[in-house]
């Protein structure tokens, strides 16, 4: 193999010199331990979260079915729960999970909040971040790459060995490629075992029955992280090549790392949140209440909207009171009320989500300038722990709630007598077998195409970055000087 012979030689030499440095050896070893810890705690988190959520989802279903014969409207208030479940990739990327509510109570007339988030039950410690495999790969490994790479060329320049190398028939392109390969080969010593463990855990979690969707997500997760790490290797070597001293190279690289991973992500999101201010919960719910009242209040007997419905019903069925209608009148009115209130709620929710989208649009745009944000968004998307997935969960829960409430209303219209029981009559009920008609809530995470569609900006950004860096290697090879 004559091809890349010089490059491989340079790379091998670089790797050997790296491991002579005991400090680097210790840091690498330490990151290895951290990766294991991240894998372990991710696994524990995941199984804990899913076991609990499955247990209570199951239990709440049993409770629902155990209900005796009763009025379907009582069942609509008894309600159901939507418990959030995680996907298997969330073992490696926690994303926004700690900030998601884990349970939504679904009942008639009322859209409840998703409650019991991990963040609500912890003190500010959580806000410092979490250790997940994704965090190690996205934040710590780039820094390690910089610690490894800042010396790569600048040190040879300081020592005067750079001139010797270049006079021995090695050209700049070979030197740059060789050093990049060298840094990458050290990083691969961490990356490859991590991937091995990752795939193994992933297989065990799914009991070796894998779906194509999950497999594509996993492959993309690995592939994009690989590309991401490679371009930090390129940045490190390029900066080292243009810096006059290794100290300058180190300081510039640390600066880049801080801006990319610590300062920009927080600032851009904060700017977004500052410019597009979201309403408080109390304003949000009272706006909805007001709008619903404008449409008509089903509880108010003299409300014009409901009075019109009543009058038209009486006309069509040619009767003089609602008690004589051939179906349950209050069930009918509640169906109408639920329709109106949930339409209004959804309209307001859309407006709110739009504000959130605007807040997020800032950092989404900045992902063009910052590969870290692009990578983070993409990996959260792939593991279904991103913003879109959460909204998706809430929407699925709301759709389920609406169907459940309307089904109970339909049962009431059909089976409950129109004559209200008086004083000591037994309440009107229907058979408990109907409860099974409402299916159990099942959350379906977004598929790979949906994810790719919503994360298209991140993908373009990563592709642009890698092309830019490859071009930079070419131009640098032509322009760089030995001194």
């Amino acid at each position, binding site marked *: 193999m004559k091809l890349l012979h010089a490059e491989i030689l340079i790379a091998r030499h670089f790797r050997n010199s790296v491991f002579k440095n005991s400090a680097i050896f210790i840091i690498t070893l330490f990151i290895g331990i951290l990766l294991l810890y991240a894998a372990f705690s991710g696994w524990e*988190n995941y199984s804990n979260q899913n076991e609990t959520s499955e247990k209570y989802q199951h239990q709440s279903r049993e409770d629902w079915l155990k209900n005796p014969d*009763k009025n379907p409207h009582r069942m609509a208030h008894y309600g159901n729960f939507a418990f959030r479940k995680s996907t298997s990739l969330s073992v490696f990327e926690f994303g926004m999970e700690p900030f998601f509510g884990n349970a939504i109570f679904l009942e008639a007339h009322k859209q409840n909040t998703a409650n019991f988030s991990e963040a609500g039950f*912890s003190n*500010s*410690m959580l806000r410092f971040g979490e250790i997940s495999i994704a965090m190690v790969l996205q*934040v710590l490994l780039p820094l390690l790459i910089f610690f490894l790479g800042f010396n790569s060329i600048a040190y040879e320049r300081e020592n005067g060995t750079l001139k010797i190398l270049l006079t021995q028939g090695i050209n700049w392109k070979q030197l740059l490629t060789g050093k990049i390969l060298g840094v990458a080969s050290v990083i691969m010593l961490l990356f490859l075992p991590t991937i091995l463990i990752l795939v193994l855990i992933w297989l065990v979690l799914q009991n070796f029955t894998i779906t194509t969707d999950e497999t594509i997500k996993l492959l993309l997760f690995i592939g994009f992280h690989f590309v991401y790490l490679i371009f930090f290797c390129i940045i490190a070597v390029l900066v080292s090549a243009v810096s006059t001293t290794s100290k300058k190279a180190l300081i510039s690289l640390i600066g880049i790392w801080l801006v990319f991973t610590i300062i920009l992500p*927080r600032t851009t999101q904060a700017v977004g949140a500052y410019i597009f201010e979201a309403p408080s919960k*109390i304003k949000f719910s009272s706006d909805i209440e007001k709008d619903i009242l404008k449409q008509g209040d089903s*509880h108010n007997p003299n409300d014009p909207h409901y009075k019109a419905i009543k009058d038209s019903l009486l006309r069509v069925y040619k009767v003089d009171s609602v008690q004589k209608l051939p179906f349950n009148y209050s069930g009918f009115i509640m169906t109408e009320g639920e329709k109106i209130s949930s339409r209004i709620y959804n309209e307001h929710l859309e407006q709110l989500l739009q504000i959130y989208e605007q807040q997020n649009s800032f950092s989404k745009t900045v992902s063009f300038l910052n590969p870290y944000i692009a990578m983070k968004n993409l990996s959260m998307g792939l593991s279904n722990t991103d913003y879109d997935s959460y909204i998706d969960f809430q929407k699925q829960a709301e759709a389920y709630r609406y169907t459940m409430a309307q089904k109970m209303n339909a049962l009431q219209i059909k089976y409950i007598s129109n004559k209200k029981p008086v004083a000591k009559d037994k309440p009107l009920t229907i058979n408990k077998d109907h409860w099974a008609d409402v299916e159990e809530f099942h959350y379906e995470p977004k598929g790979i195409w949906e994810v790719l569609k919503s994360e298209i900006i991140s993908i373009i950004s990563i592709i642009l970055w890698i092309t830019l860096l490859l071009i930079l290697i070419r131009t640098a090879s032509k322009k760089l000087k030995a001194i």
Partner: protein
Amino acid sequence: MLVLLFKNFLRSKGTKIGLLFLLLIGFISLLIGHQFQEKQYNTITEASVYQKEHIARNAVYHKDDIGLLLYYIKFSLVNKTLPINSLAIGQRDVNPSIQSVTIRGLEAQKYDAELNNPNNLLSGNIDFSFVLIYLFPLLIVAFSYNVISEEKESGTWKIVATQSQNTFAFILKLFYVRILSLAALFTIILVAAVLFLNIPIDVSLLTFFVLGILYILFWFAVCFFIVSLQKHSNYNAVILLTIWLFLIVILPAAINTYIVNKYKVPEALELTLTQRNAYHEKWDMDKMTTLNKFYEHYPQFKHYPLPEKEFSWLWYYAMQQMGDDESAGQSRELEAKLQQRNLASQQIAQFIPTLHTQLQLNEIAHADLGNQLLFLKETAKFHEKMRLHFYPKIFDEALVEKENWSKYKVETFNDSTKTSFAKAFLPLVLFILILIGFGWRNFKRGVI
């Protein structure tokens, strides 16, 4: 001599850029704090307007039925926001600062979440505590990692060493200059905050100030110790950044995972399910069984007999009460677990200055988990008070119009927790002394 050192330090372009950057982001953090404050205050004003309108409207609709009216109306309790909260937002963005509850079962309402964009929560706020805890150390490291080593590398150290009688004093002066600049910067931003955010000058502010200064000193002590090892500048930079990373990201995250896994809270979900069943099953049970339990809880209502009809509000509210009573065990357990979490994290934090400072700042600002737990407790008290106030009126079927509904205003909870100085300052002071002590020993032993 000192004046010259100052001039030399401030003349460097890097220093100027660094200080200006920190000043700028410090002011940005005040703007963000200001917006947070405005939003909190607006919400509270809105809440009292809405409550008034909401009660008045419902009192008209349900004027014949006080039981039904109280089924609907909500009463709000505000967790008081201190002006200093704008400097350390803490957990106040995750947890709601207002609880609105009806007199029905509390457990189903108590944990209602705030509306939030999870993206904002994940990336965190740029409040002043962030600037202090994350960014000040970076600048401190940038300013001090190459003290001495730079001069040694450029060959000027020998000149310095021969020209001054006491090189150790000279090093101290170099640090003195840097400490003074950053302490001044911190003070400037804090003074600006006091003026801009109307923060009262009181013990809380003083504690905040002292903690900030101690925190800055802690990082200088770390740098002093690393510099005392007299290694190469590059080595110092790598080590100091690694220490920063450890204290800011890795250790807090690791401890958080430990605490979350040690004190798991399945009680939260268990509680909601129990509460739901406990209330709903009563619809299908003998009414007297429910009522007897109710009378047992509230003997003062024994003289209200069960009305002779299929539905009565006495029975209804007794059923609602059972939802709370029968899930009380889980509720207490959940609270105890959260207390344990809070206590454990505070205890561990004493050994990690970054974490300790953040927790203390949040405590001062009444934005920590402890405050949230107190607020939940207070919410329960508030709810009980409203319940006991309205139960007899409902059971007596009091007339809606007889009641003066406008007197039910939004109430405020005032957290009276005092921060103990020893608890707040001692861990930092100890760390500073130890680091300086070891650094001093290193300097004395080694030939400078």
